[in-house]
C-alpha cells in the first residue's frame, strides 16, 4: 500500500500540470478538430459530418497566402538569426558587468503592447511620415518611393517584433559555454575562427534551435504585422483565419486552415531538427 502511494506521488504532484495541459491544450485542440470536420453555415447551423472537404476547399482557395506566410516567416527568421547571433554573442562575451542592462534594453520595447508597437512602426514607415517625408522633400528619395504595404514592411515588422525571442535563447546557450573550454581550443592551436566554428557555435546550437522555434512559428502565423504594415498583396494566413472566423463566421474553414498551418509547421520543425542533427542538439541541450 505504502509502495503504491510512493510511486504514485510524482504523478499526483504533476496533476495540476496535467489539468492545465488538458483544459488549455487538449480540449481546445479537440474542439477545433471537431469543428474543422463539420459542414454548414452560421445561419442554418453546423453538422458534424467528418468530411475533409473543408480542408480541400480551404487549401485550394488559400494556398497562396499559406505559402506567402511560410516565406515571410522563413525570411524574417533568417534575418533575425543573422541579427540576433552577433547581438547575443556580444552581450554574452563582451557585455561584462553591463550584461543585464543590455538584456533589459533588448526587452524594453515589450513594455508597450504588441499592436501599439506595430502601429507606431506604421507611422515611422508611412509614405510621407517622419522618416521618408523629409528625405523626399530633400530630393534624396523619389516621390513614388514607399515601404508601407509592401513585403519589406511586413517582414521588417516581424523581425522587429520577434527579435528578442531569438536573442534570448541564443544568449542563454552562449552564456553557458565554459570559457575554459574556449581557452582549451586556443591552447590546442585553434585560430579565433576555428575556436568559434568548432567549439562555440556547436555548443550554442540548442539556443539557435530554440530561437528559431520561438520565432518562426509565431511569425508565420502572425496576423498583426500584415494587417498594420501590409497591403492587399501581403495578406498572410493569420489574416485569412481571422477574417474567416470573425467576419465570415466560417468556423469550419478557419479551423481547417489552422490545422493545416499547424501540420505544415510541425513537419517543417521536424525536418529542421533532423537537418541540424537532433542527436547533437538534444545532447548539447541535455548538458
Amino acid at each position: 500500500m505504502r509502495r503504491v502511494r510512493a510511486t504514485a506521488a510524482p504523478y499526483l504532484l504533476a496533476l495540476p500540470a496535467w489539468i492545465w495541459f488538458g483544459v488549455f491544450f487538449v480540449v481546445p485542440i479537440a474542439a477545433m478538430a471537431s469543428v474543422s470536420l463539420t459542414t454548414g453555415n452560421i445561419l442554418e447551423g453546423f453538422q458534424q459530418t467528418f468530411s475533409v472537404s473543408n480542408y480541400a476547399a480551404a487549401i485550394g482557395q488559400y494556398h497562396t497566402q499559406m505559402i506567402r506566410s511560410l516565406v515571410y516567416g522563413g525570411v524574417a527568421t533568417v534575418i533575425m538569426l543573422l541579427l540576433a547571433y552577433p547581438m547575443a554573442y556580444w552581450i554574452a562575451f563582451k557585455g561584462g558587468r553591463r550584461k543585464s542592462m543590455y538584456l533589459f534594453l533588448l526587452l524594453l520595447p515589450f513594455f508597450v503592447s504588441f499592436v501599439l508597437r506595430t502601429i507606431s512602426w506604421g507611422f515611422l514607415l508611412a509614405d510621407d511620415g517622419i522618416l521618408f517625408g523629409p528625405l523626399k522633400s530633400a530630393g534624396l528619395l523619389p516621390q513614388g518611393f514607399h515601404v508601407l504595404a509592401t513585403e519589406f514592411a511586413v517582414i521588417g515588422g516581424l523581425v522587429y517584433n520577434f527579435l528578442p525571442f531569438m536573442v534570448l535563447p541564443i544568449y542563454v546557450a552562449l552564456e553557458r559555454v565554459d570559457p575554459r573550454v574556449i581557452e582549451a581550443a586556443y591552447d590546442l592551436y585553434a585560430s579565433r575562427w576555428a575556436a568559434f566554428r568548432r567549439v562555440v557555435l556547436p555548443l550554442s546550437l540548442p539556443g539557435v534551435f530554440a530561437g528559431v522555434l520561438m520565432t518562426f512559428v509565431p511569425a508565420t502565423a502572425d496576423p498583426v504585422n500584415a494587417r498594420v504594415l501590409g497591403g492587399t498583396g501581403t495578406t498572410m494566413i493569420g489574416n485569412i483565419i481571422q477574417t474567416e472566423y470573425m467576419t465570415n463566421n466560417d468556423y469550419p474553414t478557419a479551423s481547417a486552415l489552422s490545422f493545416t498551418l499547424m501540420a505544415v509547421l510541425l513537419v517543417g520543425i521536424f525536418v529542421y531538427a533532423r537537418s541540424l542533427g537532433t542527436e547533437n542538439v538534444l545532447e548539447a541541450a541535455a548538458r
Partner: protein
Amino acid sequence: MTETQAGTGEAMASPVAPQVPAIELDGVVKEYLANGEVVQAVKGVTLSIAEGEFFSLLGPSGCGKTTTMRMIAGFEDPSRGVVRLHGRDVTNVPPNRRDVNMVFQSYALFPHMNVWENVAFGLRRRKTPEAEIKRRVGETLEIVDLVGREKRRPREMSGGQQQRVALARALVNRPRALLLDEPLGALDLKLRQAMQIELKRIQREVGITFVYVTHDQSEALTMSDRIAVMHDGLVEQLASPREIYERPATAFVAGFIGTSNLIRGTVDRVESGNAVLALDEGGRVLVAEASHRAGDPITITVRPEKITISTEEPAGGLSAVRGTVSEVVYLGLYNSYAVRLADGAEVTVFQQNALDSSSTAERGDAVWLSWQPHHSYAIGS
C-alpha cells in the same frame, strides 16, 4: 618608456649556452585591476625549467600558481617581465602559437565531441594528415589506457577517465612542455595516488617537460625533480624535494612543507664550527653554521622526526632543550609528542615506536629533547 632596458644581451649569448632551458621566466609580474585597485597576483618570478624536467609550482591557494602558469601558456600577458620558451621570447605570442599545452584544472573537455575527437582536436587544427592523426591518437589513447572508449562523450565518463582524456588531448601534440594545473585536485585520494604514479610514468615515457601546479605538498614532494614553493606572488624557495624538506629556506616553507618546529634565539657564541644559542633554563641549541656571530638574532627550524626525546640529560655536542610533555598521540608507526618549553613555545616530536618502551614518555613528564647540530637550519625571517 623613458630608457631602454639594460641586460637584454642574453638573446645574443644563447647560442653558446650549453643547454637552452625549456621555459624561462624573467622578472615576471602580473597585475590585475580589481575594483579600481591594482592587485599583484605575481610579484616578480624568475626561474628556469630544464628540458625534460618534472617541475612543480607549490603553494597555498591564491599564491599565484595558476596566474604564473597561464602566463607560460599565453592566456595572460605579463604586466612586466619576459617569458621564453626554448630561448625564444614568447611574451606577446598568443596561446595557439605556443608549443606548450595545458591540462586544465576542470579538464575543459569539449562536451560535444567524443574522446577520439577531443584528442584529435589539436592535430586537426595543425592540418596533420589523417593517417598520422589516426596513428598518433591511437598511440596516445594506449598510453593513457583509454583504448575502447573512443566513442564515449566526456559526460559519460568518470572523473579519472576525463582526466586521462585531458592528458591525452595535450600529449598527442607532443608539445615541448606540458602545463598541468592541479590536474588531480578533483579526484579522491586513492585515485589521486594511482594517477600520481601514472603521470610520473607517462612523463618518463614521453620525456616531455612537465610543469605541475599543486597545493598538495606530498604530491609535489613525491613527483617532482624540482619544486618552486610560492607564497604571496613570489617564489620562496626553488630546490629539489629533499632540499626543500630538509633545508627549508624560510619560515613559510618550513611551515608549509610537513610539520616543522621554529625556535628563535640569539647567538651566544661560536664553538667548534657550531653557533650556539643559549636558552633560559640551561638548554642549548647548536647550529652547524659558523657564519653567525655572537649577538645575532636567529631562527632555526628542526623537523619533528630528527628530535630524540629522553629523560636523562643528553651528551654534549647535541642540541639539548628541556620541556614538559603536554600531549601524546599514538599514530601507529610512531608517537607524536607535543612538548612545551620553558618559554612557552611548543615543539612537536615524532618518535618511532621502539621495541623497548623504556623511552616512552607520558603526559606531564619532564623531558630532554636533543638533535644533531646539522639538523638545525637557520632560516631567513
